[in-house]
């Protein structure tokens, strides 16, 4: 196997990729100026545009080529080094034993030249994530397996944590176009509709700034037409919005999860997906800190659920690295939880009761802002305002009661599971040994009722338990802390 001791350059394709990045950056930053220059009806300035473009392209080209020639990577006994930069030089070295994951990704340009982008993620201080623009696939694979091997040697006590390429792979989940269509259909369309409406408003705002009068006239005319035709027109608009939302959801789902493959390979999971940018993420079992899953009302009818796997990542940067797998069967989620947290025996469990006061908290958080909006927007018609407000309060109350009833906290000997949600059911699971710290938080009202919120912090996000009895919370905390302190197992 190559030792990577000598300083090596990237694949020459990197020049193109860097050029692409530089040009994109410049374009993004100078877009307003360019538009103004091009749209400016006054003649004579075209030459400046031309000159500016030539200068920019020259600088970009030179800087890309220089970046390529000044970029080296190599490996010594304990560190992975990168030397780069021509105006600002930098030397980056990261301890190999601290490498967390090495990911490949490809955009269309990468695909054409059969190269990959390499991202090395470490548990270390900020700015230490290493990024190599282009390596040939074979180089990248060699480098990855070499680094993993080396890390294994440097960390003899820690089990070699990474997914080995040679491991037998079991495909747990695969999505073809039909699956994606189905998943797209059962997304939360209200959310998409919200995004579309917000987007519409922004576009309208921007357009009206540019063509002030024209759009106003247009909107006024169409609004007038709408008022004349009344009910049917609004119905039509709502249907159009709904159809747009559904199409939007489907497009988003397909573009994000195209050709998704979720694989288990003995020591971890591997997720490959993407339409234009194919991305592969590996996640090793021992680094998984938390699982979260969810399924909305429609998804449950089709027995579909979504899974989020959170793994410990950059410690100080605090990027929560997670993978998201949609369209799983709820049963396979159960089996994945068993696989990820084998220590948690789900046969015996205790439930912690959330106090009824939680209903009131939920009710308040659901009503305060909407009530304000309702009152402000109905100042001229008090009665209508009061009726709408009352309806909203009743709805919120019913919702809060159901939310309270669905809240289930199961405590196992080695971990915890949380289930909640009225229409969208959400679940989360965590093992005690992964806990970093525990906080008990009390508001004055909670203090008077001897209640508290408990927050369990892991290296990949936290989990909070609201409104439970204070003494019970203290017992739970002492129990969990004792487990963490006596645990000799690695938490990552």
């Amino acid at each position, binding site marked *: 196997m190559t030792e990577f001791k000598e300083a090596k350059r990237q694949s020459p394709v990197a020049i193109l990729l860097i050029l692409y990045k530089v040009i994109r950056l410049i374009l993004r930053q100078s877009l307003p100026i360019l538009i103004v220059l091009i749209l400016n009806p006054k003649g004579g300035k075209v030459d400046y545009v031309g000159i500016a473009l030539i200068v920019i392209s020259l600088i970009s080209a030179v800087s890309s080529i220089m970046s390529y020639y000044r970029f080296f990577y190599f490996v010594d006994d304990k560190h992975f080094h990168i030397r780069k930069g021509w105006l600002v030089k930098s030397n980056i070295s990261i301890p190999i034993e601290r490498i967390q994951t090495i990911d490949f990704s490809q955009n269309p340009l990468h695909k054409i030249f059969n190269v990959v982008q390499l991202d090395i993620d470490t548990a270390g201080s900020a700015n230490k994530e290493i990024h190599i623009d282009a390596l040939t696939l074979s180089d990248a694979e060699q480098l990855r397996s070499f680094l993993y091997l080396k890390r294994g040697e440097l960390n003899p006590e820690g089990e070699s944590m990474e997914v080995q390429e040679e491991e037998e792979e079991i495909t747990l989940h695969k999505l073809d176009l039909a699956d994606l269509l189905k998943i797209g259909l059962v997304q939360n369309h209200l959310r998409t509709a919200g995004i579309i409406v917000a987007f519409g408003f922004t576009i309208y705002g921007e357009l009206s700034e540019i063509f002030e009068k024209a759009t106003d006239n247009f909107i006024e005319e169409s609004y007038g037409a709408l008022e004349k035709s009344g009910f049917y027109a609004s119905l039509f608009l709502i249907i159009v919005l709904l159809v747009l939302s559904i199409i939007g959801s489907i497009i988003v789902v397909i573009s994000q999860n195209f050709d998704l493959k979720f694989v288990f390979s003995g020591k971890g999971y591997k997720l490959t997906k993407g339409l234009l940018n194919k991305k592969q993420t590996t996640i090793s079992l021992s680094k998984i800190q938390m699982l979260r899953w969810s399924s909305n009302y429609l998804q449950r009818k089709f027995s579909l659920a979504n899974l989020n796997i959170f793994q410990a990542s950059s410690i100080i940067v605090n990027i929560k690295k997670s993978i998201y797998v949609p369209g799983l069967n709820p049963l396979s989620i159960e089996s994945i939880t068993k696989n990820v947290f084998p220590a948690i025996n789900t046969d015996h469990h205790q439930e912690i009761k959330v106090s009824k006061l939680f209903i009131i908290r939920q009710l308040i958080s659901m009503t305060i802002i909407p009530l304000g909006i309702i009152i402000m927007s109905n100042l001229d018609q008090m009665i209508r305002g009061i009726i709408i407000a009352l309806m909203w309060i009743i709805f919120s109350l019913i919702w809060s009661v159901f939310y309270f009833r669905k809240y289930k906290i199961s405590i196992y000997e080695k971990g915890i599971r949380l289930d909640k949600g009225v229409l969208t059911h959400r679940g989360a699971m965590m093992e005690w040994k992964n806990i970093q*710290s525990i906080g008990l938080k009390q508001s004055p009202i909670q203090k008077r009722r001897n209640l508290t919120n408990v927050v369990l912090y892991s290296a990949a996000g936290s989990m909070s338990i609201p409104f439970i009895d204070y003494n019970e919370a203290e017992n739970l905390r002492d129990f969990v802390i004792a487990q963490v302190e006596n645990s000799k197992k690695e938490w990552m």
Partner: protein
Amino acid sequence: MESEFSNEIIKIDQLPAIEQEQVILLDEKFIKIRTINSLGFYSLMAGCIMTFGFVAIPKSIMIFVFLLLFPILLFLLNIWLIKKQFKVEGYILRTKDIYFQQGYLWTKKMIIPFNRIQHASVHQGPLERYFNIGKLRIFTAGGQSSDLTIPGLDMEDALKLKQLIGNKTGTLKKMDND
């Protein structure tokens, strides 16, 4: 069915619990620092109101005085809170973890086991330097929300605590140095 797990519950009672008497309170000089900070903040607020008053409503002195009452009241409330806070805020050092409670109205009680601590550091601002007070920060892998900051420690205590935590988390610290 639950008998096996109930055994664990009995164990829980035998676990060392946090006793309020054991809490080591913060340094008394910290009250001064907080008071000075609070005074600075509300003076600034009062200053803003005064400038605003002179520019916008030069004639109605009553409203002006009324507006000035606002930061004064808030300041007094803050002083009261600082005194109350001092009586409850503090830490406990145990063999395997560190405990810190803060807040009087809204309280937060954190425990971090030593084997989850990444590293610790001591900070000192100019005002704190004058009073010889330090701020201990304890970092975990859980990110900002799970990190712990213990302010208002005597500088020597803070350094000692940092040293102690460094020793307790020795192996991890070695990793941080390279």
